C-alpha cells in the first residue's frame, strides 16, 4: 500500500477497517466503511487492502488456532456488509463479477465440519458461496449450480462409500453436456489427489486453506 498515491489519513482509514474486520467488530467496520465511501478513496483499493487482506490475516490466524470457525463466519458477514457499502461507489460496468461456488457434502454423508470450514474460507476469500448443506443428491447440486450460474462446484465426502457421489456429479455433468460450464473441486478425509485425478475433478484440497488456493487458481 506504501506505493499507492493516497494520503496518510486515507491509509489510516483503510488500515483501521482491516483491523476492525479482523477484530470481528461489525459496528466499527460499517462505520469506517461508510467514512471511506464518503471520502474520495478508490473503493477498489479500499476493498483490496481492507477486506481481502483481512480475509488473508484471518485465514492465517485460523490455521494457527488463534481464531475459530465462528469468527470466520461472523467476519464473512461483516465483509459482505462492508463490501456492499464500498461497492456502491464503483460504477456497475467496472464491478468485477464475483465468482460463484456451489458447495455441498454429497449424498449419504452428513459430515459437515470440513465442508463448513471450506465454505467459510472461500466466502472470506471473496467468492459468492451457495452452501447446500450435507447429504445432498448429485442432481440437486447440479440443478443449483445451473440456477445460480455457478463457476465452480465443491464437493465434500468423509466416507469411502460416499466418494462415488463425487464421481457421479462429474459423470452427470459430462452426460448432460455441461461439464465445461463448471470447475469441480473435491475434498474430504478419505479423498486424495490421485482420486481427484482419477475421476477427472479439476482440483483437490487436502484442507480448507489448500481448497481456497485451488479455487483461486482455477477461477483466476
Amino acid at each position, binding site marked *: 500500500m506504501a506505493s499507492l498515491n493516497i494520503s496518510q489519513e486515507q491509509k489510516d482509514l483503510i488500515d483501521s477497517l482491516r483491523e476492525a474486520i479482523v477484530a470481528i467488530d461489525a459496528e466499527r467496520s460499517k462505520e469506517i466503511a461508510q467514512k471511506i465511501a464518503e471520502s474520495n478513496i478508490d473503493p477498489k483499493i479500499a476493498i483490496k487492502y481492507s477486506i481481502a487482506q483481512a480475509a488473508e490475516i484471518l485465514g492465517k490466524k485460523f490455521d494457527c488456532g488463534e481464531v475459530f470457525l*465462528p469468527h470466520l463466519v461472523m467476519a464473512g458477514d461483516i465483509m459482505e456488509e462492508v463490501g456492499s457499502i464500498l461497492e456502491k461507489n464503483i460504477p456497475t460496468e467496472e464491478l468485477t463479477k464475483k465468482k460463484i461456488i456451489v458447495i455441498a457434502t454429497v449424498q449419504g454423508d452428513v459430515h459437515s465440519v470440513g465442508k463448513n470450514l471450506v465454505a467459510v474460507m472461500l466466502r472470506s476469500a471473496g467468492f459468492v458461496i451457495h452452501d447446500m448443506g450435507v447429504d445432498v443428491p448429485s442432481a440437486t447440486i447440479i440443478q443449483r449450480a445451473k440456477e445460480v450460474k455457478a463457476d465452480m462446484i465443491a464437493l465434500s465426502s468423509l466416507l469411502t*462409500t*460416499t466418494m462415488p*457421489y463425487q464421481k457421479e456429479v462429474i459423470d452427470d455433468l459430462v452426460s448432460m453436456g455441461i461439464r465445461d460450464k463448471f470447475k469441480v473441486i473435491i475434498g474430504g478425509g478419505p479423498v486424495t489427489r490421485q482420486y481427484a485425478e482419477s475421476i477427472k475433478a479439476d482440483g483437490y484440497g487436502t484442507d480448507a486453506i489448500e481448497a481456497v488456493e485451488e479455487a483461486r487458481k482455477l477461477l483466476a
Partner: protein
Amino acid sequence: MRVPLWEILSRSKEGPIVEEKQFDLSIFKKTQELQKKYDIKYDPEKPVDTNGDLADRVYQAGVELFLYIGTYCSTTKRIIKVTEKELRSEIDSLPPEVVLGQGEDRVKMVHRDVEGNQEPIVIAGVQTAPFSDEEMMFKILMGCAMNRCIDGIWGGILLKIDEKYDVIAGAPSEIYQYRKTAEILRRAVIAAGRPGMITINNAPTSPATIAMFDEERGLRRSDYMEVTGMSELKVAYDDFNRTAFALAHEIPIHGTHSSVIGGFSGNPEGATIVSVAGSLQLTTIQKAECFRCGAVESRVKSRGTRTHLWVAGTAIQAISRNTKLIVDGSMGDHPGAGPGTKQNLYESAAGHILSTVMGGHSTEGNRKFVVGNVCNFGTPLESRWMGEVCKAAVGMDRELGSHIVKYLLSKYEDKVADPPEGETFEKLYDQEKLQPLPTYWKLYKEVKEELRGQGLKFKD
C-alpha cells in the same frame, strides 16, 4: 422416568424453527459466556486435569448449555429441548449396567469412577475401515478377536461387490454389503473361539445399519446399536431411525458425539463444555444407555493432540464425577500415525490411558485417523495394544496418568500434524500364521517396555 422417543419426535416437529447458521453461532456465543461464568480455562501445560474441580464446573456449564440451547434437528430445522426436571429424571433412570456379549464372552459395562477399579470394556478392531476382499477381512477380524485383552471388535466395509461394483451409501449396495460384513464379523469371532464376543458395525445410513442385525448370522441383541449425534449438537431423522429400531428390538444403544475444537465450539474450553452437552443429548434425545463423550480437532487429523486429550479427558471426568452414567472415552482411537510405527502406539496409548483414568470405557476401535480408500490399513496388533493399555491403566491415579501422557506427548507431539503414514496388514503381518512380522513385534515390545518403565502396569 425417561422421556419417550415419541415425545422427542413430537418436539422435533413443534419446537421453534431456527436457521442452522444462527444455531451454530449460538453454540459459540453461549459457550464463550459459560466459560467465563464457570471460570473454565485451558492450560496447555496441564493436558490432564488432576484435580476435578475444573471438571465439576465443566459439567455445570455443559448442563446449562444443553438446557439453554437444546438440540437442532436438521430434518425439521427445529430445536428440541428438554426441561431440567426431565434431564435429571432421564439421568436417574438410566440402567446402572449394560450387559453385552453372550456366554463366556458376556461382559457388563458399568459406570466407571475417575481412577476407578471397574474393568473398562474394550471394543477394538480396525473400526469402519475398508478391506480388500472377504478373506482378508475375515483374517484380520479373526486376528483382532483372538486378543483376549479385548471384549469386542468393530467391523469395516468391503468397497466392491463381485470385485467390480462400488458400494455406495444410500444405495442398495450399501445394505447388501454391510449385511455381508456383519456375517463376516460373526464368522470371525466364531473362528477365533469367541462366539459370544461383542461385534459392532455402523453404516453411513440407518437402513444399512439396521440390515446388519440378525440373531443367526449378523449383529445380535447382545451387541449394541451405534447412534450418532451430528456435530455439533444436532440430530437427523436418520439417526432417530437407529434409535427407534433399537428400542423396538430391545438392543442396547451406544451414542457418539463430537464437539469440534476450532469449530462452532470455538476454543478448547468451549469444546469441553459442548462435549458434555453432546453426551446429555445422546442420553435424553437419542436414548443412548452408554455413550462416547468425544471431540475432534478441526485442523489436525489425530485424536491424540494435547488439546484433544484435555478437551475429551476433562469432559469424561466431568460426567464420571457428577453422574452415574456409563461413559466411553475412546481417546486415541484414531491416531494420526499409521500402523507399524511407534507414533501410532504412542498416540493410542496416550488417549486410551487417559480415557481409562478419567472413568471411561474404550469402545471405538483403533485405526489410523485417515485411511482413505487404502484397504487393510490396520492389524490385530493395534487392537491388542488398545486392550493391553486400557486394562493396564485400571486404578491408575491422575498424577501418574498425567506423567505418562506428558511423556508420550513429548515423543510424538512435534510430528502429530505430519505423522508417519505406516503400513498395511500385508506389510506388517505373516498372513498364514496371523502373527506380526519380527520387526513389528520388536517395535511393539520396545514401546511396551518403554511404557512399563514409565509406570504402566501391564498384566503380563
